[in-house]
């Protein structure tokens, strides 16, 4: 038996087929994989409710581009967590959900539902790690409902084993004045197909999407990040920082969609890629879609080697080339990493990045 995905991670507005960027199809053989039978390790502040249930969003809709991911998870999930941050609750520490795959638990399909009720404020950290398994498969779907005036920060850290296949989707639905901040750290796996869709449905709501990735060996990554600005005076920002080494390949599709009626809205998207190998392949498609005149949208993309002047400066001060490159890579990730409040997790990511760059 196998797992099959047809044309997922679709670019919202397709372009030339020869670019091979419009969508991803993949088949996975389940032979040798063992269903995740452990419970997710949960760290919960007192005033947050958690149930190990599959909770469908009621008022919010699943984005059509993620329907295939959602249908797969709703039928095949082997772990689910539903979190509720009650109205007005301000937990004093992050909620942590920790998954760890191993040879006896190498197939994880998780569904995580986060409901931040009116005026609440919370940080949720979801970690995917693993060890001691030849192959692993993870498919995940995370749904965030941010209620009126709620503030939700979701940090995902993916450090799955090097042969793993990782398919992840995050959907966010925001009400009036809600603020959603999503930071996706895609660091492990042989193949990653990740998407995030933030729908700013409420007036004056905001969405910040930060993405960090690092490609090494033969890894392939396909990201589809999108913010839909669908109400008045919304703000959406996408910031992605990545590094490519060896023969890794990355495709980033990022979209800011200013929908008719989103007057007074603003958005920006920015991607900076540092390439450390002449065999790495880097594809970027930063889309700006606009059906409203009273908006301000911009995007900027830059790709190239680390700045030679900065490298020279660091090497003059005693660092060898490898250390200097590593410092510059870390520096490019710093604006996003600094948003992770827990020093231990931040340090773990930094160490993982260091090992990834130069082994």
């Amino acid at each position, binding site marked *: 038996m196998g797992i099959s995905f047809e044309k997922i991670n679709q670019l919202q507005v397709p372009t030339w*087929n020869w670019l091979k960027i419009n969508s991803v199809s993949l088949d996975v053989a389940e032979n040798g994989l063992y269903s995740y039978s452990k419970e997710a390790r949960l760290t919960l502040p007192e005033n947050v409710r958690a149930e190990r249930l599959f909770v469908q969003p009621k008022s919010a809709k699943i984005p059509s581009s993620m329907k295939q991911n959602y249908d797969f998870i709703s039928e095949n999930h082997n772990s689910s967590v539903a979190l509720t941050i009650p109205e007005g609750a301000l937990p004093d520490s992050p909620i942590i959900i920790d998954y760890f795959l191993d040879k006896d638990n190498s197939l994880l399909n998780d569904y995580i539902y986060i409901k931040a009720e009116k005026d609440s404020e919370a940080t949720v950290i979801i970690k995917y790690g693993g060890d001691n398994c030849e192959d692993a498969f993870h498919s995940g779907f995370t749904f965030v409902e941010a209620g009126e005036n709620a503030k939700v920060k979701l940090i995902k850290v993916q450090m799955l084993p090097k042969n793993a296949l990782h398919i992840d989707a995050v959907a966010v639905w925001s009400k009036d004045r809600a603020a959603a901040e999503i930071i996706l750290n895609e660091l492990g796996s042989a193949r990653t197909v990740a998407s995030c869709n933030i729908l700013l449905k409420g007036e004056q709501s905001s969405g910040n999407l930060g993405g960090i990735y690092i490609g090494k060996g033969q890894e392939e990554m396909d990201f589809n990040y999108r913010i839909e600005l669908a109400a008045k005076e919304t703000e959406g920002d996408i910031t992605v920082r990545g590094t490519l080494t060896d023969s890794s390949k990355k495709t980033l599709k990022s979209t800011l969609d200013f929908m008719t009626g989103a007057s007074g809205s603003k958005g920006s998207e920015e991607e900076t890629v540092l390439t450390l190998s002449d065999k790495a*392949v880097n594809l970027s498609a930063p*889309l700006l879609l606009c*059906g409203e*005149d009273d908006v301000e*949208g911009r995007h900027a993309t830059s790709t190239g080697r680390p700045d030679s002047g900065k490298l020279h400066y660091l090497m003059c001060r005693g660092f060898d080339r490898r250390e200097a490159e590593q410092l510059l890579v870390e520096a490019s990730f710093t604006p996003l990493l600094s948003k992770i409040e827990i020093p231990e997790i931040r340090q773990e990511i930094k160490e993982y990045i260091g090992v990834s760059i130069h082994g």
Partner: protein
Amino acid sequence: MEKKKTQIEEFERNIYDIYDSDSIDYQVKKGLTEDIVTEISESKNDPEWMLGLRKNSLKIYNEMELPKWGPSLHELDMDNIVTYVRPKASMTDDWRELPDDIRNTFERLGIPEAEWKSLSGVGAQYDSEVVYHSMREQLLEQGVIYTDMETALREYEDIVKEYFMKLLPATEHKFMALHGAVWSGGSFVYVPEGVKVNMPLQSYFRLNAPGAGQFEHTLIICEKNSSLHFIEGCSAPRHNTINLHAGGVELYIKEGATLRYSTIENWSKNMLNLNTKRALVEKDGKIEWVSGTFGSHITMLYPMSILKGENAKSEFTGVSFASSNQYLDTGSKVVHAAPNTSSTISSKSISKNGGNTTYRSAVTIMPQAKNSKCSVICESLMMDDLSRSDTIPVMDVRNDKADIGHEAKIGRISEKSIYYLMTRGLSEEEAKALIVRGFVEPVTKELPLEYAVEMNRLIGLELEGSIG
């Protein structure tokens, strides 16, 4: 300051919309069959290899699908398109020999006047055939060839055979295959080594017949260290039926040569403009695209530069202006295939009254294109919330020694800018018109005077009294 929606009136199109009802000498039946393709080929006395190319292109056309991206082409019914229309005029190098209606059309468009004032040569195509072609004596003496494609096929068959549809094969896409099957007319330019053509050459394409297609082929070869500015203009009167334009432009720029290719396109709003343009640039060569897209119902146009030789360069400057019932899907493609190549893309678009503009691009940096540089800037101006403006760029970078930068902006006219200009004594209308003119200025300044005037006729002068 109170927020108000900006409105821009429709262009004045009178001079473009005059239709000559009695200009057709002969036309093939509607539709696309092998018999029609053979009939076109026989009427032109094509050599055997060209008939073979046409038939093979038709076969490829029938096997290919319509593109699954971009604007919908559901209104195109090839069974209702006439692919070849011969006007009542033989080719001449004397405007006075043309029939009155045809000559008057080109005079209204200002072509003879422009030729007299500032051009080295002019070609004028009416429906499927070139009816006028001339070039200054001095260029003839320098060995420059500028003629229609049919004459080139007869008189310079070896050169045409070497280059024709080699850069734009029929397999490229469905409409390139269609072009290969039924092409007619167009221009052939050959600039010998070291020759600098100081004044531009210009070809003007007029599609008069309702329900017709125009499939002209332009082939330009700039030999080593030569230079040329080629201008292309196109227009058509408005009909109630769909017209189709699927031309092909192949540009070969040899070592150290420079070619500027300027286009002002003002097709009528019943036109599907599915044109394909491509340049192959060798070592130290340079292609400069200047493109203004105003008319047509649907345009899909992305001039492509293949930077094949070391230090080759490409510059693309384009503006598109879409109003109601228009879907202008334009942009550029660049392939960096050699070291130290560089390219810039600067694109501007304006959408109003429900018009749709899309900027679409692809920049590819091949593994061997070390130390290449590319800079892309695109800006879109939205005039109202009935319109759409989308930006769909893709960058594919396959080596680590390339510097690629891409910036895009979208939005309406800045109220701060309007306010600033108003504090300096301009009315709100004048301030907005000034800003819009400034927005498209990077394109107008690249055009020769006559074309800048035409562009002003299309944008600047109309805007000045009507924004508000």
